[in-house]
């Protein structure tokens, strides 16, 4: 009889389901297997709960503070509003300085200080009616917190920072440049997020802890591809073919070639390849819709239907086989 300690440390849920479907199990035995091999250990469970409670506490508190200042309560004097915001920032920083910067609590305090800085600028605009537009607000906020973001080693803070920079870019094209073409804005968002992705993956090459966190590059790549798909689809339907359309097309080739190479050879990850593939299917559909005779709707719909089905099947089969090959080589599981 095998010893429980000689069994694998963790077993995937589908394999246990397979075993449960084709063998007789007693309730207690199966519960024991799930507890030992699938579910997190007690220590992991407690750690996860602790982090969740801490993150939820700080997030709710911050949201409450943001809602409170958005209400712009008349009964609260301007001075009191400033005192509340500034003291919150100062307290967060003081506690941060006293704590170990690697601790989650310290990192969350820094995030809190970062968000409160934005609230402070918003209150400043509210009280003095500066007339500043959203672009000025987000730009000032970005500049003010850049040092904290650079010093911190906290992915959530980096993500919030990236969101704010995206807002700066959005409002720059919307309120400052007043460019009539949305294409430049889409191109700029794509380029910005792609640069952020390159920076992240480059850091990940040096730092194993950063490389382990796959959710962050996936979110960044998703946003880059989202903007790029919009830009290229827009270019396909826009027959003018001006400079901005060519920029989108150039970005498309550059990003897709680089990402396909990187995520299939260097970091073996199915998800980015799936995102890229689906984006290409959308572009293909746009190309068909634009290319086929406008009066022949039925033919367009039929070709779109067949193309999407064939492309999805091809993509899924390709990714499935690729994943199987990766797992077969050295019997190691890749990022999924």
């Amino acid at each position, binding site marked *: 009889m095998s010893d429980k300690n000689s069994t694998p440390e963790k077993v995937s*849920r589908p394999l246990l389901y397979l*075993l*449960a*479907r084709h063998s007789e199990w007693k*309730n207690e*035995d199966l519960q024991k297997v799930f507890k030992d091999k699938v579910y997190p250990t007690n220590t992991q469970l407690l750690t996860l709960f602790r982090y969740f409670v801490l993150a939820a506490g700080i997030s709710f508190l911050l949201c409450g503070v943001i809602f409170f200042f958005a209400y712009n309560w008349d009964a609260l004097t301007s001075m009191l509003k400033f005192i509340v915001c500034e003291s919150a920032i100062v307290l967060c920083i003081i506690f941060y300085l006293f704590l170990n910067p690697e601790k989650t609590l310290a990192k969350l305090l820094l995030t809190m200080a970062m968000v409160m800085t934005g609230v402070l600028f918003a209150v400043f605009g509210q009280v003095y009616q500066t007339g500043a537009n959203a672009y000025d607000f987000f730009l000032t906020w970005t500049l003010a917190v850049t040092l904290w973001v650079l010093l911190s080693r906290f992915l959530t803070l980096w993500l919030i920072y990236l969101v704010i920079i995206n807002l700066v870019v959005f409002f720059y094209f919307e309120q400052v440049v007043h460019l009539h073409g949305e294409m430049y804005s889409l191109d700029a968002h794509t380029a910005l997020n792609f640069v952020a992705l390159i920076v992240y993956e480059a850091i990940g090459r040096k730092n194993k802890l950063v490389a382990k966190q796959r959710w962050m590059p996936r979110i960044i790549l998703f946003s880059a591809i989202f903007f790029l798909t919009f830009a290229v689809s827009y270019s396909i339907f826009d027959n003018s073919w001006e400079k901005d359309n060519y920029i989108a097309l150039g970005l498309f080739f550059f990003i897709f070639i680089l990402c396909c190479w990187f995520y299939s050879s260097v970091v073996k990850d199915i998800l980015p390849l799936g995102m890229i593939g*689906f984006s290409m299917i959308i572009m293909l559909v746009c190309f068909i819709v634009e290319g086929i005779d406008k009066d022949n709707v039925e033919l367009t719909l039929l070709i779109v239907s067949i193309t999407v089905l064939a492309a999805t*099947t091809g993509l899924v089969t390709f990714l499935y086989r690729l994943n199987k090959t990766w797992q077969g080589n050295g019997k190691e599981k890749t990022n999924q």
Partner: protein
Amino acid sequence: MAKKKQISKEDLKALHEAYNPQGKADWKIIDEEFENVATGNPIVLKILIILGSQIAALAFIGFLAVMDLFDNKESQFTLGIIFLGGGLAMSFIKNRSDFFEPFALTCVITGLSVLTISFADAMKFKETELAGVGLIISLTLWFISRSALQQYGFFGLFIFCIAVLMWEAKAYNMIHVLVGLCAAFMTFLLVHEAELLSSSKRVAGRMNSLIASCASVLGLLLLISVNKESFDGEKIGNWWASSIMLTGLLAYSGYVVVKKSMLNISPYAAIVVAIIMGASCVLAPGIIASVLLILLAHYTARYLLLTAGTISLICFTIAFYYNLNISLLNKSIMLIISGIIFLGIFAGMQYWSSKKSNS
């Protein structure tokens, strides 16, 4: 990059022998299916299949409509049956690869849509009657189909038909009952996973699709109905009812998780925490539902569900900001209180763990 070692057939046999030495196993079938199951099907592929199939089916239905094929009732009915039957038949192919899945799903979506239009046309059905028939058909198809993706869709359609019936009967407050039922069913499946698997072999094949359907429909129901107006311009109220049911489930889940995990803390503490949490978010049932989802996903190590819970928590918090029924001041007070409660729990956990390590 950290990589996990893949499990071999021998590992699985060793596991079975160690935990279930007396239990009989059909190793022939397990060996046959092992490779497909062990390779796994990354969730991204399933999402791709769902998205691609829906676009393809939509375009194909459009094609059929433009070709005037919907004018002829017989051709409509025949096409519907052929597509639906074809899609279901493909789900029966043993050890089918993902090659068939998009085809099968597209056929099922097209067939079902064409049949619905055909029925509504031929029988002069109104929405209520159509939803009633849909209820029976979706449940039957759910029983017949062997594909997890199709089962997911059929069960989702079943709950959607119930929602349509409630909507048509103008029983808007019944939506709380539906929310409660979806959440209760999902909680039951997640908390009693092992018990259900050991008691019925059939459950194993359908468990994941049922959980995914319930979680998706629960999120969708709350997203489209919390503080939104119905088509008649009437607001659905009494959201505290949903909140109470969800809080009850949160308390139950917390109790079971603490008890089953033997965490050395009283399970009643989990109930108290859940009640405080529910009370502070009584007007935002979406937030309570998201916390419930996160708790259960953590406990059962389902990371896709965890991601869905986290995203829904962000979405429902943003939706709460735009809820015009409550003033921003009241909302901020509720959120600040919730935040302080959570931070208090965190402080309590820290104190408890430091006390434990000192002793």
